[in-house]
């Protein structure tokens, strides 16, 4: 009998990404320690193993049909903090929100950049340290990581080592990240000052943004795809202690984590007058903005003005809701903060366009917002600036622009339409984020990731028997050349 029988196990569960598309069955193992994880890797079946965190990315990178999936959320210990040097050692399954909450009283913040390839959090959680590393975030602040390799041994690798570079953004195909040492960013208070600026359209936004010299670390824009095509740019910066208003209650305990919810990270400074409060619904939020002429900023958005655009205020409560601020990925739900995400399965399209190809970015935005485009079902696209290239061969970040949108998977004609957008992105020298991808045409992978062969060679050297496999690797033929 050539067909192998398959004994169903209670631990076999159908898994999907946050998008809820393309489920596949895998044996889910939840190790509590590094030796347990090593045992699971060595005791894998014929279809390999891959690690998984909160399952917050939308694609199939953390699925392994018919194989083993390691749920690393049991490895969630913060192992050490050097509060003077600002270095933390934590296990891969540590939630980013928990890490942020634990670090805040010590005056440190996880080194998260919105634009560093890190996704906005899905409805499943803000993600884990290991997940952020595997999808290409945090890379700039990584000191070292412990990697469980195919032979069951644990290696400590540092940036500069090809294996380490390939692991950041490597989608878990080089090994299982067990723990990471990260350099932190100091903060004086738990607050940030944010500001929203409205623009008539995406062109006005890009004109303003390209002309803006100072590097705004926490900046993100939303562009309306349906409707009038307006855009909002939100920026935020941490508030130093001296920047807290005199007599403000925040002065008493500037580093206190938020009391309610499981929050961490910075949050907007409360209790000050707001020029405009944005409402929960994304569309209403946009319409609440003044209709600006040209690049005129919204009322009261001069220096020192504090608004609540970025977080916290109007969001539904829950463990994610209080995770405010720009220092961490926004909970949510696509579109503007607080906007409800698509109901049912959705596809997250996230792509990068290099600096200098703004005309291509404009073209893609125009294509997305075209009258007959199925992407209009997403209602908003998020645009971010990326300030540095990623290091690894499969790292997503490209210095320039990052565009993301969540479209309901049922939108008519979406598949062929996104293939068309892929062509435009590839022609502009950009790429699609593999961590969020669930639908890329395999032939485009070597075009978008020209260093794919280096990744394949490294994999062949470290994992000749293809122990680490995922649905994404199968679908895109990551380790076999695709004609």
């Amino acid at each position, binding site marked *: *009998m*050539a*067909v*192998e*029988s*398959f004994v*169903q196990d209670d631990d*076999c569960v*159908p898994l999907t990404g946050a*998008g809820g*598309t*393309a*489920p*596949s*069955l*895998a044996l889910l193992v939840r190790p509590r320690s590094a030796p347990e994880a090593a045992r699971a890797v060595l005791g894998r079946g014929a*279809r390999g193993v891959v690690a998984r965190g909160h399952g917050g990315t939308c*694609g*199939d990178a953390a699925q*392994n*049909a*018919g*194989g083993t999936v390691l749920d690393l959320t049991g490895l969630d210990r913060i192992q050490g903090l050097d509060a003077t040097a600002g270095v933390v050692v934590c296990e891969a399954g540590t939630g980013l929100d928990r890490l942020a909450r634990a670090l805040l009283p010590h005056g440190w913040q996880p080194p998260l950049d919105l634009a560093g390839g890190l996704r906005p959090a899905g409805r499943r959680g803000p993600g884990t340290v290991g997940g952020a590393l595997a999808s290409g975030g945090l890379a700039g602040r990584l000191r070292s990581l412990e990697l469980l390799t195919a032979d069951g041994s644990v290696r400590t690798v540092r940036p500069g080592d090809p294996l380490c570079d390939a692991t950041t953004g490597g989608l878990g195909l080089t090994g299982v990240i067990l723990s990471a040492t990260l350099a932190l960013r100091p903060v004086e208070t738990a607050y940030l000052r944010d500001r929203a600026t409205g623009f008539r359209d995406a062109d006005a936004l890009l004109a303003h943004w390209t002309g803006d010299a100072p590097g705004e670390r926490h900046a993100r824009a939303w562009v309306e795809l349906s409707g009038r095509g307006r855009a909002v740019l939100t920026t935020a910066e941490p508030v130093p202690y001296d920047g807290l208003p005199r007599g403000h209650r925040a002065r008493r305990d500037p580093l206190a984590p938020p009391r309610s919810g499981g929050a961490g990270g910075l949050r907007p400074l409360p209790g000050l007058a707001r020029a405009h409060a944005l409402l929960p619904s994304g569309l209403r939020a946009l319409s609440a903005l003044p209709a600006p002429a040209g690049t005129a900023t919204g009322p009261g958005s001069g220096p020192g003005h504090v608004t609540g655009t970025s977080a916290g205020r109007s969001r539904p409560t829950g463990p994610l809701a209080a995770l405010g601020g720009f220092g961490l990925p926004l909970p949510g739900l696509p579109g503007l903060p607080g906007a409800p995400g698509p109901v049912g*399965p959705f*596809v997250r399209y996230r792509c990068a366009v290099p600096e200098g190809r703004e005309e291509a970015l404009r073209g893609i935005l125009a294509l997305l917002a075209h009258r007959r485009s199925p992407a209009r079902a997403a209602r908003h696209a998020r645009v971010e600036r990326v300030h540095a290239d990623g290091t690894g061969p499969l790292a997503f970040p490209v210095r320039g622009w990052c565009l993301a949108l969540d479209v309901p*998977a*049922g939108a008519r004609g*979406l*598949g*062929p339409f996104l293939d068309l957008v892929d062509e435009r992105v590839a022609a502009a020298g950009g790429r699609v984020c593999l961590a969020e991808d*669930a*639908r*890329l*045409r*395999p032939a485009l992978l070597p075009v978008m990731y020209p260093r794919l062969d280096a990744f394949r060679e490294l994999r062949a050297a470290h994992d000749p028997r293809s122990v680490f496999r995922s*649905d*994404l690797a*199968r*679908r895109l033929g990551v380790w076999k050349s695709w004609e």
Partner: protein
Amino acid sequence: MKDAFGAPQSLLLLGGTSAIGLATARRLIARRTRTVWLAGRPSPELAAAAGSLRALGAEVRVVPFDALDTDAHAERLGRVFAEGDVDLVLLAFGIPGDQTRDEADPAAAVRVAQTNYTGAVSAALVCAAALQAQGHGSLVVLSSVAGERGRRADFIYGSSKAGLDVFAQGLGDALYGTGVHVMVVRPGAVRRPGTAGRPGGPTATTPEAVAGAIELGLRRRSETVWVPGPLRLVASALRHVPRPLHRRLPV
């Protein structure tokens, strides 16, 4: 692997010369399908079908497969799954038979039943086990509206499809939660060479329409698909028509 829209990358077509099967293969090749396995009795038509799909850019391989030779199913189909994952198995073989002649020739009637029902049961079970082992994939079973209620005009064919339909529904429930998706497709009378002489009417359809419905059903992970869609309501109404009246209806 299937993508977020349920578009498969590899297809196993059981009944490699089926008009609906080939129309579906052409449609899927235009999306993501790169590998096609055509299973069928070796014949010039099968080779021609393989050639036509190769011309579209797919890598096509032919597997000798006979629905009546159920003993060989496990070995033949097992070889296909051993070569790599199969994202979609399309069970499209079946013979319409000749009702008037088969009524007088029980052996021919048995052949219809064996091809359409027992052969399909065997092949579907073999494929279901293999899909379950790989943890993903879809099994699409071509049933027929003829299996919905016994009709004077085609009850031999209809009864075989009725059995297959119930089998596939139960198999779908058995595989629920295993990552494997089973979809039953119930087309109306399909206008194709084999059924040219049959009554058409508003419930008639074409292989291309069935292929489109299969693609949509894969995207939505539907469990039952009627082609054309309104046929579902027609069949539901016919199910409740009293027999003396149903006997007289020109359906």
